[in-house]
């Protein structure tokens, strides 16, 4: 560009910088739709609430339903199961947090806060996905009579709390509510 030195260099440089910047902005704007399309689409997001009829579940029976592509365990617990879960001191728990989406984030993992609450202590509703690496645990198995994940050996108790093995957290409890005595809405 030696023949071009008569042109004011600052003006020229400004032009080059402005053009380059506009190019970068344009490229970023073009990239956005390609990333945006990967997010869950409108139909996936909208399908996030289901209603489940639990009238046929007597104590000791479970039901597995699919919610957001994952299994949700709904269990009508027996009095023994409730009792054994209530008797566990909080200090013995590997994860002392309730992990209950219906409660605040720092609620403690007492049995009542893991269950459906006062008067419905027998109901346990939780996402049936091991918090280790996402396998589905087997029900009423393992060292604590709750759930046992066969993939890497995590043991959960009768309130779905992690007690032994590599999983770091209690199984998650989704947002749910009883819209009648026999119907639960999840999500």
């Amino acid at each position, binding site marked *: 560009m030696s023949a071009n030195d008569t042109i004011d260099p600052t003006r020229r440089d400004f*032009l*080059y910088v402005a*053009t380059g910047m506009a190019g970068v902005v344009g490229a970023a704007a073009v990239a956005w739709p390609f990333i945006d399309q990967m997010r869950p689409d409108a139909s996936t997001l909208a399908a996030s609430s289901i209603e489940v009829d639990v009238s046929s579940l007597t104590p000791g029976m479970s039901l597995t339903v699919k919610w957001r592509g994952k299994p949700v365990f709904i269990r009508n617990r027996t009095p023994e199961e409730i009792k054994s879960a209530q008797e566990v001191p909080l200090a013995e728990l590997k994860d002392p947090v309730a992990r209950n989406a219906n409660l605040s984030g720092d609620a403690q993992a007492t049995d009542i806060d893991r269950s459906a609450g006062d008067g419905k202590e027998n109901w346990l509703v939780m996402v049936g996905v091991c918090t280790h690496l996402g396998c589905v645990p087997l029900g009423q198995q393992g060292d604590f009579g709750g759930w046992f994940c066969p993939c890497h050996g995590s043991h959960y108790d009768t309130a779905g709390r992690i007690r032994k093995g590599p999983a770091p957290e209690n199984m998650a409890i989704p947002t749910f509510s009883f819209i009648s005595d026999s119907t639960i809405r999840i999500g």
Partner: protein
Amino acid sequence: MKKILNGLAAFGLVMAGALGAATAAEEAHNAAEPTHFPIMKPTQEKWSFSGPFGTYDRAQLQRGLKVYKEVCSACHSMDLVAFRTLADLGYSEEQVKAFAAEYEVEDGPNADGEMFTRKAGPNDHFPSPFPNEAAAAAANGGAAPPDMSLLAKARAVERGFPTFVFDIFTQYAEGGPDYIHALLTGYDHEPPAGMEVAEGTHYNPFFIAGKSLAMAKPISDGQVTYDDGSPETVDQYSRDVSAFLMWAAEPHLEARKQTGFSVMVFVLLFGALVYLTKRKVWSNVAH
């Protein structure tokens, strides 16, 4: 450049001559036995969603939905449209839920392996009035009523030369709504003397695929009650349902046009910068 222009001029002359001859050939047809359809071209209506800044008129879409629900949906399905998308028409979540609950959809199987019907929810699509296409055809004299989800994009009368060239610049993309409006308001025309209209069909000069169609005049004045004081005429119903069907076929039209404006402005500015840079770079080279 001048040579290119000369070339184009010569090309234009050749084209004009040939097209003139072709058009004349096309015009020569018999009024009683037309061979090209539609017999009459739809008029170009005014639509709120036309042009670079077009938007849907929410009130009109809501009226159109009412017409669809009370009239069209008796025969025409709209498989691709989910109730949740009606929020675009200005309805609240609760209103959408209530609207969906007026429909029943089949679901299942339940724990006993039986299919059952339940109230529709926002994530369900408009249920079809017939269980399958064969049933739809059987109930309608052999002609299954077309699904309406994409009707406004699937019907457009050919514009012909040179109109289609001008359409690029006027951004005419409302051939579908114009056609639907023309068809719905076109039933009152009488067939020309000597024309035979097949039994069980109804003459309509705007029908795209023949001189008559299986659908009888579907709507008449006062059939649907409007709450907002809009005229309860066939013309108004047709306009509203056409607009609604355009929304059903192209729900992201507004986003498209708005994004488009930003993109065009950016490309224009960026283009100007690049052009200045190009001039600067080439300023020391004769070319």
